[in-house]
């Protein structure tokens, strides 16, 4: 008996061997792909979502194998394809957003622009990532509100991840009077930053003159802090700097225009020079 001898109808031994090999290969490939995906996504996707994803992939591989077997059996699939196509279009239109969210979810898991626990801004929403599911991302806003964002929206939005890098720079702008000495101000502010654990030793903190304004000098104060401590460090150190400046008698002038008058000849005032100051708002 040769391989081309028909056994069942037109089916030869060779056809049966190919079908058997296709079935076995399909099961092996489906199993291997599932195993690989399980390893790759384990810990990144929730257990239940991962199970669903694995089953979809597993059955997709088997369906492809069945189609290959049909072609081996010379079964005309054109009718099935037309019917399947129409059903597919209907299902596709109906589940467009679901599929969009699913695909976006997979890409979010692969690309990982955010992780659980990260403080982020997605579009115009700020908060912490609570969970990344296959169709949606769960957030907790700073007000403690539960927020479910569809993955398609997350994927298409501008994402700002505040803790993706280990450190962030804090910047303050503080106005002081024109008469203040920059060296003295540095001598007050820098030790406050150097004494704080969360103003990092490196990159070193900086105090610079940023603007010589009409009514004030504007200091730019910059230091780096661990990203996770940003909010606490920013608030605590601003308070300490304010207290330090107040302790040294340095006032932050209120906004306004300052006009100086000097005594002119014969005791008449002239609108220039120095000495006593008046203020017009």
């Amino acid at each position, binding site marked *: 008996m040769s391989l081309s001898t028909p056994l069942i109808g037109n089916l030869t031994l060779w056809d049966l061997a190919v079908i058997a090999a296709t079935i076995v290969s399909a099961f092996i490939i489906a199993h291997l792909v599932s195993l690989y995906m399980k390893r790759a996504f384990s810990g990144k996707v929730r257990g239940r979502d991962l199970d669903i994803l694995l089953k979809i992939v597993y059955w997709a591989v088997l369906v492809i194998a069945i189609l290959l077997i049909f072609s081996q059996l010379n079964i005309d699939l054109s009718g099935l394809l037309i019917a399947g196509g129409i059903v597919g279009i209907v299902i596709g239109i109906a589940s467009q957003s679901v599929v969009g969210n699913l695909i976006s979810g997979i890409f979010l898991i692969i690309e990982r622009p955010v992780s659980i626990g990260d403080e982020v801004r997605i579009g115009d929403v700020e908060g912490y990532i609570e969970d990344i599911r296959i169709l949606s991302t769960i957030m907790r806003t700073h007000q403690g509100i539960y927020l479910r964002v569809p993955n398609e929206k997350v994927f298409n939005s501008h994402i700002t991840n505040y803790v*993706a*890098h*280990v*450190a*962030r720079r804090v910047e303050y702008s503080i106005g002081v009077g024109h008469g203040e000495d920059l060296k003295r101000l540095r001598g007050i502010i820098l030790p406050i930053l150097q*004494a704080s*654990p*969360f103003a*990092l*030793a*490196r*990159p070193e903190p900086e105090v610079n003159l940023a603007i010589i304004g009409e009514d004030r000098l504007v200091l730019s104060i910059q230091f*780096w802090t*661990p990203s*996770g*401590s940003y909010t606490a460090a920013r608030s605590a150190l601003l308070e300490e700097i304010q207290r330090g400046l107040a302790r040294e008698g340095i006032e932050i002038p209120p906004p306004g225009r300052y006009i100086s008058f000097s005594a002119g000849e014969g005791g008449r005032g002239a609108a220039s020079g120095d000495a006593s100051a008046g203020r017009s708002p």
Partner: protein
Amino acid sequence: MEKAISVGLSRLLVHPVEPFNTGSGVAGHLEVEFPQLILEAGATETVFLTFPIEIGVFVEGLRDTEILDVFSVEKVKYSLYGSPNRGVITRFARSLRHREAPPVDRTREGVIKLSIRNTLSEWAKVSRVVLDEAEMHLYVADFTAMMAVMRITGMEVAEVSGVDRPLKGGMARAHDLFTARRILQLRAPPRIPGVERKGFVMEGGLS
């Protein structure tokens, strides 16, 4: 804060620990800056540096030992080693460079014996060392000490690994908070006895 502890048959231990337990676990590396050392090609130099320690309060029961509190007498300071996107937050300290173990305040500081080897074919400058928390093997007697090896492999690159041996005879292994913390936080594999780790690769510069 005052705490009342009922120890019963247990024993209360006050013990030096790695300097990473205060400050909400911000840092996982120790960085010590010291006066610059210039090494010729192929040279090996041993220096002694000081580093901050924290004090752990443990209760030792019949079955296990549990940590009650950790505090730092030394002022805590953090730093960034490397760039903000690829670097690490370090517990930062400055130290003088000594030829032998210097006297230290045992509640504040410990001693590192650091062996620096320049594997390059040119002079190298080094003024800082960064150690991974996992590489810190603390030993205690009348003071706390650890040993580390630094291999300079590029003008701005070095490998730093800890040596799990006491600095001198009579020193005992300090309580290890690292392993328990890593298991709980799942940040990195715990330290496994007998398994050598590669150590921390300093890619953010040596001075």
